[in-house]
């Protein structure tokens, strides 16, 4: 009886395509969709924005149709608070060190890439 139950469980897991020992957290990561936004977070006193970054953001906006933007570290909205759309990105980028590109799906951080200096590096940073 127990053997049958184990076999059924293993069969179900294989059919679902989920490794049997993957954690819940890992499975959540799998189901998150592609990036909906990308933010290049920088501090203007620390150095220039490479021209390639500008090109990459334009390409992401036009070709990938995601919201790809720049954010200076000290930026606020009209009320003096960090703009809602940038809260998660700013926190993640600060942890990684500026400048950094943060790829997001909604407000979920997918990937943080420190110091991308070229168009190709930014494009690769956004899954």
């Amino acid at each position, binding site marked *: 009886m127990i053997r049958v139950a184990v076999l059924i469980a293993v069969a179900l897991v294989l059919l679902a395509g989920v490794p049997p020992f993957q954690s819940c957290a890992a499975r959540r990561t799998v189901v998150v969709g592609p990036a909906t936004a990308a933010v290049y977070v920088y501090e*203007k006193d620390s150095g220039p924005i490479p021209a390639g970054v500008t090109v990459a*953001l*334009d390409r992401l*906006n036009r070709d990938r149709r995601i*919201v790809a933007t720049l954010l*200076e570290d000290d*930026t606020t909205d*009209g009320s003096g608070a960090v703009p809602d759309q940038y809260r998660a990105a700013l926190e993640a980028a600060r942890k990684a060190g500026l400048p950094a590109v943060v790829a997001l799906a909604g407000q979920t951080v997918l990937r943080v890439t420190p110091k991308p200096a070229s168009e190709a590096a930014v494009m690769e940073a956004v899954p």
Partner: protein
Amino acid sequence: MKIHPRLIDVFPDEHDGYPDHLAAEDTTDALRDACGDASRDFPEALWIEPREWAERAAENDRANAWAMNCIDRYTNQTPTHECTCHSLRANLEAARNRARGVIYRDGPRAGYRYAESGQYGSVWLSPLSVYAEANPKRWGGANVRSVLEIAVRRGMLPDRLQPAEYGFRHAMAGTSGRGNENQTGDSWVALNRFPAGWEETARLFRPLEVIFPASYEQAVCCVLHGMVVSVGRNGHAVPWARWIPGQRLMAYPDSYDLTRYDSERTAKSAWRGSFAIASCTLPDDWSRPAAG
């Protein structure tokens, strides 16, 4: 790229928007005081050796990384004296569009509206919304110190005309001059006739960090890094938005529906009292710029 000489160092007699007595008040110290906490020194990390300027300019040309590529429209102030405020709006709009990450490949074009302006949340600001406070008498111009202080303190209102329907609760004419297909031209509006509660909307469009170049070379570096540098010279204020190495010219979208150029000689006489907006307030959601 050969520039026609008639577009270089143009100082028409009717330019009275930045007369000498007002320009004399625009020392760097006075501008810093006017901006308060928003004042910034030129960051050392942005310095580019002059021998490398041409190389950086070529890179910007290839990438369309100039501030000129963040400006999606001309304005037309004819025949008013609002020039310092039209220069300010180019500076602030460019800073905001740069943050949005979209390139307007040809920069401003007369008689043309980019579809991208509406798609990517470009907001057209009203120079008149600042000028009406800077000079309530309407004629005679305003100094940079006044218009910067006003913009940093309470922001600029949007033009009634926008590239998309954003639903601003407060907006007004862009200019009391002619305007154009991308800017509302209408009657003069005194500050006490602004729409009730206008401050709620104006605060959404403020400079946050303003760099004051301490030399001509620092001003060029700001332009090479994709910022607009606003200057006043010979009675007229303009926003430098691109540097052209061969002829060593500064290109600017003049507030008369066309691009003009300052020679290096003029530029070297004009950098004092210049400023570059490095960052500005941004929305909580780019698709809803009226919401804060």
